[in-house]
C-alpha cells in the first residue's frame, strides 16, 4: 500500500481492498471454521452468549446500525417512487403503496423531458468515458514504456495541473465556449459536443497516473518478446498491452462515467436548452422548481438514474478481482 500514487487514490485502493476482501472470503472462512488458535476459544464447543456478544455480537449490532443509516435514504426514495402522485408529505408513509405509475408519468411530461436527459447523460457519459480511456491509455503507455526528454517533467506537470480543477475554471470555460460558439455554433455553448470536449480536457491527469502505475506492473519482457516477433509499437499497444491492462481501463472508464454522469457545475453552465441537459442538471432544476409537489416523479427519476451506476459499481467489483486473479503475467 505504501507505494500508492498520491494522485490516484480511489480506484487504486478500491482494487486493493476488493482484492483483499475477496481473498479474505476464501481464506478467512476456513480459519474461523477450524478455530485456529486465536486465544483458544475455537476449541470450545459453544461460547456463552455473554462471551459471544463481547467478542463478535456487538459488531453485528454496530453493523446493523450502520447498515440502516446507509440504506435508509435509498429505501425511502424507492418507496416514494412507488407512490404515484405523491408529495413530500405522502412519501413519509413508507411502502404503503406499490404502483409504477410515477415511472410512466416520468416519460410523459413535456415540462421535464426525462427520457432526453437520460439519453443525454448516457451518451455524454459513455463518449467521455471512452475518450478518457483512450487518451489516458495512449499517454500512460508512452510514459510507462518510452524514455524521452521531458518525461519526468510531463508526469509532474500532469499532477500540478490537477491542482487547478476544471470547476475552478468554469468562468473561463464558459467564456471560451461563448467565443467558440460565435464562430462554430456546433461546438460552442449549448452543445453536447462542446461539453464532451471540455470533459476530455481533464482526461489526462489522475487517470493517466492511475493507468501509468498499472502499465508499469505489466512486465516489459512481454513487449520485447513481441518486438522480436516483429510487432510494431502500434500492434503491441493495441493488441497486447491494452488487453493486459483491461481491468484498469474498466476502472478508469467506470470512474469517468460516474463522474461525468453526476457532474453538475460545468454541465449546468454549458447546456442551456432543457432537452440538451443531463440528468444532474435536469433533475436539480425539476426539484428546485416544484419541490414538494411532484416528489414521487422525482423519486422515480432518481431511482432510474441511480440503477445504472450502482449496478455497474457492484458488478465491476467482481470484474476487477477477476482481472487481477486471472493475471497478466505468464
Amino acid at each position: 500500500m505504501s507505494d500508492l500514487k498520491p494522485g490516484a487514490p480511489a480506484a487504486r485502493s478500491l482494487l486493493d481492498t476488493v482484492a483483499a476482501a475477496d481473498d479474505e472470503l476464501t481464506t478467512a472462512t476456513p480459519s474461523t471454521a477450524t478455530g485456529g488458535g486465536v486465544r483458544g476459544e475455537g476449541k470450545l464447543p459453544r461460547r456463552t452468549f455473554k462471551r459471544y456478544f463481547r467478542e463478535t455480537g456487538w459488531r453485528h449490532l454496530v453493523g446493523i446500525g450502520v447498515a440502516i443509516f446507509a440504506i435508509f435514504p435509498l429505501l425511502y426514495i424507492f418507496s416514494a417512487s412507488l407512490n404515484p402522485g405523491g408529495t413530500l408529505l405522502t412519501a413519509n408513509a413508507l411502502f404503503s403503496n406499490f404502483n409504477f405509475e410515477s415511472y410512466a408519468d416520468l416519460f410523459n411530461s413535456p415540462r421535464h423531458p426525462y427520457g432526453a436527459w437520460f439519453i443525454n447523460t448516457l451518451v455524454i457519459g459513455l463518449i467521455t468515458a471512452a475518450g478518457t480511456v483512450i487518451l489516458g491509455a495512449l499517454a500512460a503507455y508512452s510514459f510507462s514504456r518510452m524514455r524521452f526528454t521531458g518525461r519526468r517533467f510531463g508526469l509532474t506537470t500532469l499532477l500540478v495541473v490537477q491542482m487547478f480543477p476544471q470547476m475552478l475554471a468554469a468562468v473561463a470555460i464558459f467564456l471560451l465556449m461563448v467565443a467558440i460558439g460565435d464562430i462554430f455554433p456546433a461546438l460552442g455553448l449549448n452543445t453536447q459536443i462542446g461539453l464532451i470536449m471540455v470533459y476530455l480536457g481533464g482526461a489526462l491527469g489522475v487517470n493517466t497516473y492511475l493507468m501509468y502505475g498499472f502499465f508499469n506492473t505489466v512486465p516489459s519482457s512481454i513487449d520485447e518478446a513481441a518486438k522480436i516477433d516483429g510487432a510494431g509499437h502500434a500492434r503491441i499497444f493495441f493488441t497486447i498491452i491494452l488487453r493486459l491492462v483491461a481491468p484498469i481501463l474498466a476502472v478508469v472508464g467506470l470512474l469517468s462515467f460516474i463522474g461525468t454522469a453526476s457532474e453538475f457545475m460545468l454541465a449546468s453552465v454549458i447546456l442551456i436548452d432543457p432537452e440538451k441537459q443531463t440528468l444532474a442538471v435536469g433533475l436539480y432544476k425539476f426539484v428546485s422548481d416544484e419541490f414538494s409537489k411532484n416528489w414521487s416523479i422525482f423519486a422515480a427519476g432518481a431511482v432510474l438514474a441511480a440503477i445504472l451506476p450502482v449496478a455497474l459499481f457492484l458488478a465491476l467489483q467482481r470484474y476487477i478481482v477477476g482481472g487481477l486473479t486471472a493475471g497478466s503475467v505468464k
Partner: protein
Amino acid sequence: MTTPTIEEPDTAEAPRPTKRARRAARIAEAASGGWKVLLFKVIALGIIDAMALYAILVLVQSDQWVIAGVVLAVTAFANWIYFSRGHLPAKYLIPGLIFLFVFQIFAAGYTGYVAFTNYGTGHNSTKESAINALMLSAQERVPDSPAYELTIVEQLGELSFLVTDPDGDVRLGGEERPLEPVDNAEMDGGKAVGVPGYNTLSFAQIVADQQRIADMSVPISDDPNDGALRTPDGSVAYAYVSKLVYDEAADTMTDTRTGVVYSDNGTGAFTAPDGTELLPGWQIFVGFDNFTRAFTEESIRAPFFSVLTWTFVFAFLSVFLCFAAGLFLAIVFNDPRMKSKRYYRVIMILPYAFPGFLSALVWAGMMNQEFGFINVVLFGGADIPWLTNEWLAKFSILLVNLWLGFPYMFLICTGALQAIPDELQEAARVDGASAWQVFRNIKLPLLFVAVAPLLIASFAYNFNNFVLIYMLTGGGPRDVSAGVNVGATDILISMVYKVAFVGSTADYGLASAFSIIIFLLVGTISVIAFRRTKALEELV
C-alpha cells in the same frame, strides 16, 4: 499494490541505439505496420485535416487571424509528427495534450486573465461595440424625417436594406454595414426592387422574418452620429438618430436632451460628473482591483471571510468525521471471527455507489422543515429547520457528507489494515503490549502512512465539494446583508458559481479572482501536506 513496479531510474537513460539497432527497429516497424495501418492513418489524419481546413477558412472569414494561425500550426505539427519516423512518444501524447492545453491549461490561464478585468454584466465587450450598443439603444425617430422606399434583399442568409432616397439615389446597406450607392439596381417605377447577386424577399418571407427585420438598424454613414434607418413594416424606412452623441475627439457621450456629458475616465464605462454610468460599458484591465475588493470592500470582505472559514471547517470536519467513522468500522469488521461481513460491506458501499447529486437532493427532501421524513416521522411532527437555520444547516451538511463519505474511508481503511502484517502485532503482544498500545503505536502510524495522501486528496475534494452544498442547501440560508449573493453554508466554489452564474448580474472578474484565491489556498495546503507526509514516510 503488491506487484512490483519496474520503472527504471530516469537518470540512467537507455544507451543511444547503434546505427544497426536503429535500422533493425525501422525494418521491424515497417514490416509490422502494413498497408492497413497506413491507410487508417491517412484516412484519420485526412478527416482531421479537412476539419482543420474548414475551421481555418471560417476563422479567416471572421477575421480571427491569430486563432486561425494557431489551428494551422497545430494541424501542421500533428501531420509532421504522425508522418515522420520516430517521435514515438509524441504520437501517443498529442491527442490528450491538445484537449489538456485548450480546456485546462488555457482555461486556467484565461481565468487568471479574467480575474484582472472588470468582465461581467454591463462590461462584456469592446469599447467600440459598447458605443454602438449605447447609440442603438437610445435611438429615436427623427421628427418629420422623410420616408425612404425600401426593399429587403438577402444574400447568404444575411439581410440588407435596398433603399431609394426621396431624391432617387439607390443605396444598399445592412447591419453594421453603412449604406453604399448601387448603380445597377432593377427599378420599378422609381423604386429599386432588386439588385444582382441578391434575392428579393417576398411579402410572405418578410412576414415570416418580421421580428428580425424590425430589429435591424442600418447606419446611414460611417459616423454613428448620422443615425440609422429602421423599418416598422419592411416597405418604408425612416431615419433614426440617437439621443446620445459621441464625440470621438473628446471621447465623450453627450445626452442631447439633458445635456449631460458622459466621459471615459478609465472605469470601463462613460461616466457623468455625478458618477452615473452609461451601461453597457466595456471590458478593461483593472489590475488587482478584484482581489483588493475581495479583501477590503466591506460588503464583500465580511461574507468572503465567513465563507473562507466555513470552507476550511467543512473540509476538515468532513474528512475527519468520515475517516473516524471509516476507521472505526474497518476495525470493527476486521475481525476474523465475525461472520457475514460481506453483506454488511455491500450495504455500506451503496451510499458511495449512489450518484452524489441524487443523494443530496434526496436528503434535502428528507430534511424539509414542513414535510420531510425526519421532522414528520422521526421527530413526530417537530418543526426543526434543518436546512434553514444557519447552524443546523451546517450540521446537516456534515451529516449528509458523513453518509456520503464513510464508505470510501471504510474501504480504504480496511485495505490499509489488512496490508499491515500480522507479525508486527504478534511481536508486540509477545513483548507485552496491550491491544490499545498495539493499535495506537503500531497500527495507526502505519495506517497513516498509507492513507495520508488519500486524506489530503479527500480534503482537496471536499474543499471544492460544490454539488453537495449547492444541491442540499443552495448555500443558504442567505446572508441578506452581504454585497454578493452568498449564504451561511456556501463554500468558496459555490460562491464562485453564484457570483458568476446565478442571479441577474454576473461578475466574472470577481468570480475568477475567487477561483485564483482558491487555487492558491488548495495548492499551498496540498504542497505543505505532501511534504509532511513524505517526512512521515521517512520516519517510519
